[in-house]
């Protein structure tokens, strides 16, 4: 049994927003795989909760009229992995969320919860960061869209204003078209684990597949919040697909990331792994995009 002061079950999105207004101290409960665990640990004991789990209107993946890929915030990890649209346009996201915890966690966990807890180790966050996702939030003042780079304010804090609920995550067409990516989750065991470091790379190659038209690389647990390695991206922009460029790109990421030293992993290990993962994820992305190194 959980130490919850009160549970308010929202029947609709508007109802949820109204509940959040009526109970300003209440927190949002989606799948609960983070929140309920923290209630049990005592960090959130005695909290009021607004449960939005029953809101099917916030589930599902679709292409909207602006040809964005629209992912409902309550879509569970397993449903994202198996969704045809995701598999077609941004399969790396399906692969990334398929590494969260175990199958049961992926059945209950939602991508909204994974991005609203503001945790840098969130498996979906580094990939969404690398694909310039846009967060759609709905609140008393209506709908607001926040690019993911502005979404994470600081560790565990996101740009979610009072009585606002994240309702969808959008991947603009310009961001996914002609794009191929690969995610590597570095963890101490192959399941039921949180990322020690997560690295998501995607590439858009030139017509002749000889040069990099655009490369994006996002990291989890390389900083207090998920980050992009912009310096490395700018360096490799337009360059040829050669081993040297790939190597230099990989080492340049260190200019943008600042992993910390902790009992979970030392700083030197995190920096080293970040570089190795950058190279491997880039190489995998290149082959997915049909490119050949030194070709």
């Amino acid at each position: 049994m959980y130490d919850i002061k009160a549970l308010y079950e929202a029947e609709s999105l508007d109802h949820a927003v109204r509940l959040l207004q009526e109970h300003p101290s209440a927190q949002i409960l989606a799948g609960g795989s983070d929140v309920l665990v923290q209630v049990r640990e005592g960090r959130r004991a005695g909290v009021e909760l607004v449960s939005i789990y029953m809101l099917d209107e916030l589930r599902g993946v679709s292409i909207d009229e602006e040809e964005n890929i629209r992912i409902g915030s309550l879509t569970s990890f397993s449903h994202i992995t198996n969704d045809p649209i995701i598999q077609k346009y941004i399969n790396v996201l399906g692969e990334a969320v398929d590494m969260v915890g175990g199958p049961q966690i992926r059945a209950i966990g939602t991508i909204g919860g994974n991005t609203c807890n503001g945790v840098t180790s969130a498996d979906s966050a580094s990939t969404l960061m690398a694909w310039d996702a846009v967060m759609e939030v709905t609140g008393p003042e209506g709908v607001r869209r926040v690019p993911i780079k502005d979404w994470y304010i600081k560790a565990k804090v996101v740009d979610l204003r009072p009585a606002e609920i994240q309702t969808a995550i959008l991947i603009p067409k310009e961001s996914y078209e002609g794009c191929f990516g690969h995610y590597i989750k570095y963890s101490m065991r192959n399941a039921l684990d949180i990322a020690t470091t997560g690295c998501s790379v995607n590439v858009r190659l030139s017509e002749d597949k000889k040069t990099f038209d655009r490369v994006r690389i996002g990291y989890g647990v390389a900083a207090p919040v998920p980050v992009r390695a912009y310096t490395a991206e700018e360096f490799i922009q337009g360059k040829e697909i050669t081993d040297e460029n790939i190597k230099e790109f990989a080492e340049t990421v260190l200019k943008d990331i600042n992993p910390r030293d902790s009992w979970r992993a030392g700083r030197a290990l995190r920096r080293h792994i970040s570089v190795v993962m950058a190279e491997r994820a880039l190489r995998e992305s290149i082959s997915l995009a049909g490119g050949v190194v030194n070709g």
Partner: protein
Amino acid sequence: MSKEILGQAVTRLDARDKAMGRIKYTDDLCDKGALVIRVLHSTVANGIVKKIDTSEAEKIPGVVRVFTCFDIKEKHYFPTAGHPWSTDPHHQDIADRLVMTDRPLFYGDDIGAVVAEDEVAAAQAIRVLEKSVEYEELPFVLDAQEAMKEGAPLLHEDFPNNVLTHTEIHMGSVEEAIKEPGLTKVEGWYHTQPVQHCHIENFICYAYGEGDRTVVVSSTQIPHIARRVIGQALGMDWGKFRVIKPYVGGGFGNKQDVLYEPLCAWISIQMGGRLVKLDVPREETFICNRIRHEIKYHITSWMRPDGSFAARTMKAWVNNGAYSSHGHAIAAKGLNAFPQLYPCDNIDGETWTVYTNRSVAGAMRGYGMPQASYAFECHAEDCARAMKMDPLEFRRKNLMPVGYYHAFSKNELYSDTFNQCFDKGAEIIGYYDKVKEYANQTGDIRRGIAVSTYWYNTAVYPIALETSSCRIVMNQDGSVQFQLGETEIGQGADTVAAQMISDTLGIPLDMVHPVSCQDTDVTPFGTGVYASRGTYTLGFSIKQTALLLKQKVLEAANQFTRMPVYNLDIVDGNIIRTTDGRKLMTIGELALEKLYTTEGSQHLTAESTYQIRSNAYSFGCCFAEVEVDIPMCRVRLLNIVNVHDCGQVINPMLASGQIHGGQSMGIGYALSEKLLWDAKTGKPLNNNLLDYKMSSFMDHPRLVADFVENYEPTSAYGTKGLGEPPVCPVAPAIRNAIGQATGLYINELPLSPHTLFREFTDAGLINDSFAE
């Protein structure tokens, strides 16, 4: 007499019930009306509790009672180890624990308890209480060698320098031996880490009053010992307690200590026999129960040119944590094994068991031998490399030879078990080809293969009492129920025992029913299961008791068939005349007649105790094949093959299950498991199943288990211990395989990315230009 029931892969007797989900574990039996107990734990690693203000906690709705260490009027210090009691005071375990103490010696020590209507109120009360404890904090020490130094904080007055015990062994003269010319000296420090049992069912017990006694239902491996320890802990007659052990969700040695049964019983008594349940949450299982001893070894060997040992020395520092629990037994077992595994004329061995302000270390599958095997086999590999010999050949040359006799334990190696196991394992995994194939590789991804072995015996003779009692009761249809002190904790003891009775008594297996859950009021005395004693020790009392019963049955048969007893036998549930093989009557007809006859009616039952005064070597080996991704600092175990000689295998399916379980625990021990503490506060850092990296389904390759069956002459059914041995050789085998792959032989566990990164960087396998 048909022998085929022994050695048959019979389905576990409780498998169906477990597959249907109707098996009852402790929590499933406890009435919903039980009050919930939550223990208040010390948040300092060393200190004195000055005051606990319970007023706030008592106001929380749903909280029924709050106890603190100050409610313990009479301090009864008690031992917690699941050792059989000894009437000789020198042999008794150190009694240094209290149900609740005002002198916490590790972060997590028990200083109070809350009794509430539900776990929410209990948790609320604990959070409030934790803020209302006034400590006098004292400096603490976490490392064993640091704890021995002068000026280190002293945990127990009567143990200067925190040394619980220090023992030595000396054979021949190392001093003289090393003067021999042409010797090669090989030296190494080997360091194993603290890990935890992680049985999926946490420890749980509940207690209630019944008449003037208290019943404790507990998930334990040692019900009879638990009853004795509860009596000692509460300063009451042992008969005032009754311990019942339902089905257990795994023990691995953690439940071979008496954990919270005394506190639970004490609370029930304070509340007039009220039904109270103490259910330990996973986070407390990690630090407030028992863990495996962290041990540091320093081993030196002097090798002759032909690769034989001239002299060897060993030192081991064993970190025992805050209380004695099993005391020096773990260290002693390692020290005792050192001169036996690789015999040598000149040996100096020394080991210290040391108190530190850390979670209490106790029995864990292997009881000190996984640590010792890691050190011994890493060192053996280092010696082989120093002498440029093939590691396997080096071992064959130096391991304990056939016919070896150990005076103290009277153990004897009756068969060439090491070589048989090596041959079989090498053949299965294709060792010889791969060793050549993987020699001196280069590149980022490299493979390696290696073998390791270990020393192990069965049960604890002659160090402690080994006794087993059995009662077999025959029903009117000739079927029997049997009761044993040896407890079923998942290893299959009941099934194996049933097979033995079926064999000796000569009745079909489906007529043999275990009374699986021990109840100290009814079950004949037995000390439970540990030290891989199960199959070996229960075999003695079963055979003896079954033969007693058989004698009574045949005497009854004589009465009804007029045939002399020596011409009668029981085969397949029938009374047979041995002279012509004729079936005279069925066992059912006999049992019915003998019970209801008006001339000499008798209830056919037999009960007896057998004190085991023998031991048995149980050896084997592990071959491990790994793939090392050097840049990613990760090791992937491709294949693992364990071959064990546990004497006659009674049930191959259950036996291979024991090996799989041991391999799995060994893999985690080798690659990812480690308990961590914050050096500044002494607070545990990863006491939960997410941050403590126990192997998951995806961290294992296929596990291959095989046997070499050398009938053990000293054993009732030719069996030898198998529960713990499979854990021992896995970690060294993996370490040595990584060594072959990368040329780096690492002397520390676990071989996790952290360790590999540091070692690879030091060795230049990784040289990041960007390193800071």
